[in-house]
């Protein structure tokens, strides 16, 4: 049981086949940097590690990266200033801010400086991997008002969902939750990401709120005999998987 779930976890963070993504890691703590680098390399990314802000600014201007992971506290120029200067130069590379500061204000400041996501230390590698994947693989945007993923069909205007021919009766929040998952098929979505993006909460409730809501959504999605659409990844989150 445990084994299966762990496998689901590593599969979750499998990068898209084809081109390898280039990631610039700016982190002055050598041991954390080594762990992060090894973990991301094992997930198929190419990592460039830089230990200080000044050098990071230089290399970010000289070369193209698909993503930057920037620690807030750096020798030389601090992380937020690095991001601000990169943005001022017109570089739109997505940035994930890492910080030992978890305060809400710090988070707001990090995003204001031009960061796209914020992760406070200590973090689980699966959480980091999920955020990296989310930033690299932009959610599915559709021109029409209907989102079709696998057997599901979601009308964004009428707020209705069908699985095949069967209409699903969803509450507004369940609709939002499913839409978020459908836009990120095959992608690990963590509990924190759901709380932040679907509920817009920046605090962590003590009970397993997200699991309960996902469980309820799951019961509405899958009836007997249908392949399950939402998989759990133990200790991390969920994957919306389209059956083959």
């Amino acid at each position, binding site marked *: 049981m*445990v084994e299966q779930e762990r496998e689901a976890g590593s599969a979750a963070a499998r990068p898209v086949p084809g081109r390898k993504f280039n990631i610039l890691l700016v982190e002055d703590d050598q041991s954390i940097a080594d762990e992060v680098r090894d973990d991301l390399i094992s997930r198929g990314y190419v990592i460039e590690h830089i230990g200080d802000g000044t050098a990071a600014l230089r290399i970010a201007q000289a070369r193209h990266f698909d993503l930057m992971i920037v620690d807030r506290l750096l020798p030389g120029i601090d992380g937020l200033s690095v991001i601000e200067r990169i943005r001022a130069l017109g570089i739109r590379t997505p940035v994930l801010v890492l910080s030992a500061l978890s*305060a809400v*204000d710090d988070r707001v400041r990090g995003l204001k400086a031009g960061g796209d996501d914020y992760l406070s230390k200590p973090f689980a590698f699966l959480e980091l991997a999920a955020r990296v994947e989310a930033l690299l693989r932009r959610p599915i945007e559709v021109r029409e008002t209907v989102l079709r993923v696998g057997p599901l069909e979601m009308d964004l205007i009428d707020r209705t969902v069908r699985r095949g021919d069967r209409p699903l009766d969803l509450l507004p929040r369940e609709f939002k939750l499913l839409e978020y998952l459908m836009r990120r098929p095959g992608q690990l979505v963590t509990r924190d990401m759901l709380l932040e993006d679907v509920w817009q*909460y*920046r605090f962590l*409730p003590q009970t397993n709120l997200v699991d*309960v*809501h996902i469980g*309820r959504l799951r019961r509405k999605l899958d009836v007997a005999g249908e392949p399950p659409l939402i998989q759990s990844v133990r200790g991390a989150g969920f994957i919306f998987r389209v059956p083959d």
Partner: protein
Amino acid sequence: MFQTEIFRSSPFRLAAAFAAAIAAVTLLLFGFIYWQTAIFETARINGLLQSEAAVLASETPQELVRSVNRQLAGNLFRVTFIGLFARDGTLIAGNLRHIPHGMPLDGFAHRVSASGIEPQAPGFAVVRGVARQLADGSVLVIARDIAVLAELRAPVLNALELGLIPAFLLSLATGAWLSRRALARVKVVHETIERIMHGDLHERLPTRGTRDDLDRLAVSVNRMLDRIERLLHEVKGVGDNIAHDLRTPLARARAKLERGRNSAGDLATLGGVVDTAVADLDQTIVIITALLRIGEIETGRRRSGFGVVRLAELAREAYELYQPVCEEHLLALELELAAEPQVAGDGELLMEALANLIDNAVKFTPAGGRVRIAVRMEDGIPVIAVADTGPGIPAAERDVVLRRFYRAEASRHTAGHGLGLSIVGAIVRLHQFRLVLREPASGSGAVFAILACPDPATETMAEGVARAGAMTAAAL
């Protein structure tokens, strides 16, 4: 050291300033008296001289010479000068040699320089004189020194010496005595504070029950010390508890990892051991995160996120959020909206507070029970409350659960950080609302109510200390 302190003490400085003021006023007074007396005396002499001159001028020349001689012989006043001069300025009779220079012959008294009168008699510094031209062209001069004014000065100075110097010295001595007394008390206070600073926190400033200013100050300082001591004890207890709570999962994780390394036969077993150790470590992180959160709310004092919050909407959202959770725990979640009040606050933080209260209710209420979220008005005060049908909180524990950083004994064995109520407390304090714990109207259970009114028990100093405590606890 102590001697010089007397001169620097405030009572002595006050006394010295007072003595100086008395001296200045006395000097002014005496000066004024002397000045007025001198003016009066001069005017009297002037009048005498002028009328004397007028009387003499009315006499015939023969009588006048006789009168002049009689004046001299009669020695009316030893200090009186007189001279009758012929038209050409030669002396006819009298003890003056010539008409003083620049003397107007107008019959009025003038100041005359002594050298112009009697070179043999120096010392008569100031002389008043009258010169008058007579009908036959001769000139009559009478003059008189005003040494009497100089004589007047002596008693005035004497009186000053006798009155002023003792008064001045006496007030200085009184000041020194008063300051010595005050310094003795201040010294005791200093020594006490020194001992308190060195850790003797149960020491108190001495009071004498006189209700004077120093006494009242000492009483307030003592009350402050009581409060600080109590809060420090609380914080210390909290620090010890937190250290203990962190130590337990850390010790477990350590033991598991060590045992896993020594005895795990295969990779899968080791993996399982590592997973449970990571879960233990996650537990410590959850506790630390909650402590930092409390610190953030308490120190942040950020009221920038404040706006209008509709409590009923908040309750509806919480209901929607927790309804599935309650269903899973076989609890009935009820929503009672008796009013739709608006309050000034941070909606996100109030949601966090409400979520923590519901979390607690869900955690401690056995299956089959009920949890109720209610919004209503009580005596014009908006109230949002969470009631449950759990075992409730024993009367003995009711006071302590609302304390900062209180971790319920029961929560040590359930999931979560057990600091939910502390987070609620911090949010409520930030809003200056009140958090109260009530008994349900019927049956068992607990009711936590947030009263959206300023808390009268809020004390700035206490909060300052609590804030320091929050930081200490967070530093752990």
